[in-house]
């Protein structure tokens, strides 16, 4: 029976000891332990968050890098394409110009030739007129009364002749 009969002494001492222990731990031990654990937990959480953020940032950076690289590549392609186009254009235009120049020169040459030819013809005509008059004079042997008039006649005839 003694086993299950509470004794006043043990009750009293247990109360005292437990309360002293409780107050001691509450005032002195638990605040330190709790704050340290909490701080550490916060630190770990923030570190994890930071790591996550860094990871994301890295991924973002990588993505941007890739983007930039591909952009640069496409830019390069574009530039090369443009250059090729430009080159083609230059070639084309120079070819065109050369052709034009050639045409122009040819035309000028042709005009010159034509002009020379006309001049030569004119000379020829004059010479022929004079020559024929002289010839006719000589042939007929007589002096024509109005030389100038005759000359005019010949001229006219020559013009109608149209070489």
């Amino acid at each position: 029976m003694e086993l299950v009969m509470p004794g006043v002494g043990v009750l009293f001492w247990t109360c005292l000891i437990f309360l002293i222990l409780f107050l001691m731990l509450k005032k002195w031990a638990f605040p330190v332990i709790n704050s340290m654990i909490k701080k550490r937990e916060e630190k770990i959480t923030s570190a994890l968050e930071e790591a996550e953020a860094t990871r994301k940032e890295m991924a973002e950076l990588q993505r941007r890098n890739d983007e930039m690289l591909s952009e640069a590549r496409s830019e390069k392609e574009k530039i090369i394409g443009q250059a090729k186009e430009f080159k083609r254009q230059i070639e084309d235009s120079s070819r065109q110009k050369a052709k034009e120049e050639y045409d122009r020169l040819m035309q000028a040459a042709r005009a010159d030739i034509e002009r020379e030819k006309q001049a030569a013809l004119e000379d020829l005509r004059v010479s022929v007129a004079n020559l024929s008059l002289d010839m006719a004079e000589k042939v007929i042997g007589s002096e024509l009364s109005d030389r100038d008039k005759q000359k005019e006649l010949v001229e006219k005839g020559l013009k109608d002749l149209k070489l």
Partner: protein
Amino acid sequence: MALGFCVYSQAFFFLEEQMKDLVFSKLVFVLLLLVLTGGGCGRIMAQATGLPVAESRTSEDRVDVKSDEGEAQKESFNAGEMILGHITDKHSWHICDWKGKAVEVHLPVILLYEGRLHCFSSARFENPSHAYDGFQLRKEAPHMGRIVAVEAGADGQLRIAEKLPLDFSITKTVAAMMVSTLFLIILFFFVVRNYKRRGEQAPKGVAALFEPVYLFVRDEVVYANLGKEHGDRYLPYLATLFFFIFLGNFLGIVPFFPFGANITGNISVTLVLALLTFLITMGSSTKAYWKHTFNTPGVPMWMKFPIPLMPAIELMEIFTKPFVLMIRLFANMTAGHIIILGFVSLVLIFGQQSVALGWAVSPLTIIFGLFADALELLVSFIQAYIFTMLSANYFAGALAYEPGKASNGAH
């Protein structure tokens, strides 16, 4: 042994996090080793002294045996008496026997009788009549093991006074409790120092051992029942409770001197703890709690009126809860001590029959004793856990706090 380990590892199965598991296994191993070595020592000692019949009285039961001064010298070993002597409270702390003499610590006796305080060492009772200064330490039937006042009757004969003195002695239980509390304070001193020194770094040494247990109490017991907000308010009490009970249980199984007393197997101790839980429950009770008690929702009206059946049951439950808390811890720890001591006395009992039989039984005793020790280690943790868990649960009930939809009525 393997079974003991197996049971052990299962008990901590619910600590999901690997880290906790790791540190816990370390802790468990160390504690187990401590208890086992301690237990082993105790066993071997008991065996050595227990074997020869003639010397059986020099074993731990001597305290009880030698007290029966007037009786015959050679009465047989009484296991029940020995066990009861070990688990009940005493005014002196028996350490061991040395050359036929009991080595014990005589604890101070503090008595309050008729308004006067009497303080003296319990060594004063070491005389044939166990009497000193008008008090007597009873060794037999009425008030056995207690201190009574003696007075001269009308016929001049000394007789036990009607009024019993209030006994505030530092008994074995109280002394052991002081030791375990001191142990706890030293532990916390190192832990706090470690935390202060290492700041936010991971704990090391004692703190690394301590922290998983503390976090377990905080997360699995307190926060799980009370949530974070309420939990932080009750955490100091519940954590103190847990460590007090755990260390009380645990040091109770360590069989050598400043430990080994049946602290938490003392009904007064568990009564105080249960009472504190009860008082805090009452102190934090809310309107919703009382409404739930006297007008339980979901119960048909005829159970409440005209005969208040349900309220009566609920009201009773308020008191049975802490009562059961008290009985559970007391009974578990006492039973554990009885089992271990029972295995020890097995050797003594058989040794009385014949020396050879004693030797034959001893390996069995050692195996079973070790098993019982391992089991007790498990029980010492589980009981501390259950006590704290249920306390937290009752507080949650009083606050009418329901963590999510978790179980709110674990009994």
